[in-house]
């Protein structure tokens, strides 16, 4: 199964790869977003901790 | 005074209270009704006034308009009582809360659901519906709108006192209205071919109403307790 066959997927490449592409995109986006959200929360909590420490 | 009769008396008093309250602010009554009429009258202007098309889309239009109209009026169901503290007193009444909720929903239905049924002939006129179909539409609305009010009350209780509550309420409640919409509109479109065909639709709508009558007040009471903590 050569690469070009693999990509063309018997003429339905567009549909197959759009489906798989969106799945991969959303899953990675979700993981990245949750990790980013975690960093944000931790940073905000640290800043609040400092503020409370100073007061 | 046995429990049963105080419950009935409270039920009657709450229904009468809401009706007198509505009578004292007559304009609120008409808003729901005119919203329904306007929405129904808009479609022929958009879709075109060709009789055959209108007759074909009439069931769907009438029912979607009924859904939206009854859903719009829901926001006022508990909002007034929530603001002036009477809802708290109802929560603290030594009566089962679901009975009080049922009373309020019945009053709400009498003020918004029933007028939709009575105004249906106007839709029949505009959409050139046959007498049989019109009769079935009124009957279907009569059986369907209580379910809309009952299920909608759950959404109204959940979104009590929230900013942007109206839009949120529609987002929560409209998906739950879908079965009533499908069989309500289905009944009317089936009535075009033969009235006998509409019998299963009406049975299903009655089933939904009974199901909602049993479950919705309990769920609304629970939602009220959560919302007014």
């Amino acid at each position, binding site marked *: 199964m050569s690469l070009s066959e693999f990509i063309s997927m018997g003429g339905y490449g567009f549909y197959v790869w759009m489906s798989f592409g969106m799945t991969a995109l959303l899953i990675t986006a979700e993981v990245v977003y949750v990790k980013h959200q975690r960093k944000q929360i931790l940073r905000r909590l640290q800043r609040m901790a400092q503020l409370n420490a100073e007061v | *005074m046995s429990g049963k009769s105080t419950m009935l008396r*409270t039920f009657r008093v709450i229904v009468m209270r809401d009706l007198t*309250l509505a009578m004292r602010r007559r304009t609120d009554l008409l808003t729901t009704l005119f919203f329904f009429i306007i929405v129904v009258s808009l479609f022929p202007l958009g879709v075109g006034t060709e009789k055959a098309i209108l007759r074909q889309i009439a069931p769907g239009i009438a029912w979607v308009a009924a859904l939206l109209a009854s859903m719009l009026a829901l926001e006022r169901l508990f909002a007034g009582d929530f603001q002036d503290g*009477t809802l708290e*007193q109802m929560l603290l*009444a030594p009566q089962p809360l679901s009975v009080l909720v049922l009373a309020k929903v019945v009053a709400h239905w009498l003020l918004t659901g029933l007028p939709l049924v009575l105004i249906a002939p106007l839709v029949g006129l505009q959409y050139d519906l046959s007498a049989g179909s019109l009769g079935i539409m009124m009957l279907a609305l009569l059986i369907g709108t209580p379910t809309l009010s009952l299920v909608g009350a759950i959404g109204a209780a959940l979104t009590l006192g929230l900013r942007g509550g109206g839009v949120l309420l529609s987002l929560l409640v409209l998906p739950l209205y879908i079965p009533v919409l499908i069989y309500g509109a289905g009944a009317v479109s089936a009535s075009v071919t033969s009235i006998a065909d509409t019998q299963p639709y009406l049975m299903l709508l009655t089933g939904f109403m009974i199901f909602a009558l049993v479950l919705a007040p309990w769920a609304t009471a629970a939602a009220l307790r959560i919302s007014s903590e």
Partner: protein
Amino acid sequence: MLSVSNITCSRGDRTLFRDLSFSVAPGDLLHLKGKNGSGKTTLLRSICGLFLQDSGEIHWNDTSIRNLGEDYFREVVYLGHHNGIKDDLTAEENLTIAAVLDGDETDEKQIRIALERIGLRGYDDLPTRVLSQGQKRRVALARLLLTKSPLWILDEPFTALDTSAIDLLQEIIREHIAADGMIIITTHQEVALTAGHAKQLELGN
């Protein structure tokens, strides 16, 4: 007899109070003190069953109010910040509905007497919308004259009242305590008692 054992309440993620215990016996007036935001209203609302406390138990005559359910509500009257009256209804209608909700048998005459005593003679068939804030509060207080519930929970009842109404309310409170009633009250006023015994509870650290 109301007994509250190590109750903890929190709003959002802030714990208002922790492991609070006290009891109120017939003839007691419990005066809740504490600065604003110390959880007085939340404590009152959890006592009357509106708010679900995080932990701890509230018992009425040694049965938890959760199990009593609606029977407990027959014993309690709660007067919160809101008056609990409909503006479009007349004072008489409001009181009749409140009485029916409480399951009491009251007739026209008793309501009229209550309204007269509370100083609203002649106002009883006007929609409460036209009344002043103080008069609306009086309509809410008139419910105390009509109710048969032994336990009164009053949250800042003296707000928006003029001096004559304050004296009247003090008198009503004294009468209720003398008749072996129970009151839990939050107020910045001092309530002088002739009979029964006043207790204090300080909230907030």
